[in-house]
């Protein structure tokens, strides 16, 4: 039977589908790719719904979108507690210790994430104009995400964090020196991010390099190396040189257009 492949997440869909059943991307809209090779993340239509496990997610609104989860029995999701918008009263919550408490706290990162367990509904949103980026993760994938950009992830994804070696605070707008790492083992998972402003993705070839303002970095495949690249440019009196993040392929890099500026 003929199937339609989603250009964003590569999942197969029935021919009558208008949006991808796995990530919600419109199937009847053209890819928007810039001359320089960046692809716009698909703009999810208001009220788009897609499935994961025995649950579903509906994305509502367009300026500050809400991700509303309808969790099936036995399914759960985890998130940072302050992004909960509302929930059914009977949906139980639990906490997961991420480890590295003091270090995480010093890095401005939460050291506890919260989990919600089905059945029932719970909704999440961040506090700024932007886009929900839906990243279904196939088994055995690793994705690194800038701190405080993670919206919600399904329970089959394991969560850890990585220290950005040698980069200290310069790479995260002064907010921290940790990146969230999401890993799938033998099960697929669903990861939702909130990108501030518009989100663009580019796939770097092996050894291909791009310099990104650190505050604009959103996510990358763990195969992409991220190094600090100091530019020999003074941006003011008594200031040190400017730092950019050098991303080296192979793999995907996602950026956001409303970035957090680091203070140099």
């Amino acid at each position, binding site marked *: 039977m003929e199937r339609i492949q989603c250009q964003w997440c590569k999942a197969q869909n029935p021919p009558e589908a208008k949006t991808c059943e796995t990530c919600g991307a419109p199937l009847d809209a053209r890819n928007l790719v810039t001359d320089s090779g960046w692809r716009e993340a698909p703009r999810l239509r208001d009220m788009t719904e897609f499935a994961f496990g025995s649950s579903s997610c509906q994305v509502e609104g367009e300026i500050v979108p809400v991700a509303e989860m309808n969790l099936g029995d036995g399914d759960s999701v985890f998130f940072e507690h302050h992004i909960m918008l509302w929930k059914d009263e009977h949906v139980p919550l639990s906490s997961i210790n991420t480890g590295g408490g003091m270090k995480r706290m010093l890095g401005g990162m939460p050291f506890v994430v919260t989990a919600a367990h089905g059945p029932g509904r719970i909704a999440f949103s961040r506090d700024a104009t932007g886009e929900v980026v839906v990243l279904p993760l196939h088994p055995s994938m690793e994705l690194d995400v800038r701190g405080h950009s993670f919206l919600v992830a399904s329970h089959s994804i394991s969560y850890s964090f990585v220290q950005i070696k040698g980069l200290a605070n310069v790479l995260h707008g002064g907010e921290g020196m940790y990146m969230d790492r999401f890993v799938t083992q033998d099960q697929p998972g669903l990861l939702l991010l909130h990108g501030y402003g518009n989100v663009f993705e580019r796939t770097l070839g092996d050894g291909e390099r791009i310099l990104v303002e650190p505050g604009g970095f959103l996510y990358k495949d763990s195969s992409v190396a991220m190094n600090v690249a100091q530019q020999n440019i003074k*941006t003011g009196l008594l200031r040190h040189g400017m730092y950019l993040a050098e991303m080296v392929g192979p793999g995907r890099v996602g950026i956001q257009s409303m970035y957090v500026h680091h203070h140099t």
Partner: protein
Amino acid sequence: MATYTCAYCRQPSEGATTTCPHCGAPVDVRARVSDSGWEEQPAIPDMARIQFGRSTCQIEGAYVPVADMGLSADDWVYFSHHVLLWTEPSVRMDTMPLAGGWNRMYAGMPLVMMRAAGPGHIALSHDDPGETVAVPLAPGQAVDVREHRFLVATGAVEYQWLDAGVWYATQNGDDTEYHYPLGRFVDRFHAPSAPGLLLLHAPGNVFIRDLQQGQTICVQPSALLYKDPTVGMQLHLEYPGGAMRWGRYMTASLWLRMWGPGRVAVHSVFERPEPVGGNITYNSPVTSKSW
């Protein structure tokens, strides 16, 4: 042969594309003019291209648009360093020092501009939801821009900064505090001999109007995006009428009074104005009105 004149940038083109090649405004939309005469600047469509020199600028995204400059080897642009989003390693970057460093630093303005020369791509964006506005400048043309609204300009555009000339001082005990509702400085961009391209970032939506000779309008100072240098401006205070008035010792509304001839552009997101009490001790030239 030029057959189309863009309603927004006023530059002629062949009209063969769906967007103006000079400013990216769509050519196939009707003008949206309010009853009061403000014309809504249409957002540059996602992925629209603007031509300058042998280079192009592609506007990408809708909430916080990115200006992706594809620079040829002959072209260069300059910008404030904090708007840089990404660059290809082939782009050569250096700094363009500006005069008056201490005053600029005191006013919260960047001390240097960054210069980027082709070949290669470099992308820039601001950090507010809003619109990218392209202002092509014909030879000899200049425009005055409110501080912190500048995104990027091409090498043919000269940059100066001027005192805004809109301020007042208040006395609180022994302390005198100076207030600059428009910012201390106004950026002036001028294309002396060759056409240039100026890109601005405006929070919210953008509206423009042409003021006739002597025609006036009062706008929120922090809503000003740009104006023609021919447009004059000064501080304007209004004291509301009604039972709760105690002479001049009451809160006034503070406006930027502008008069033509020339273009004025405003954006719809602005800072909440500070309340102005009766303790103004010094001020720039001002008009006032008590209702």
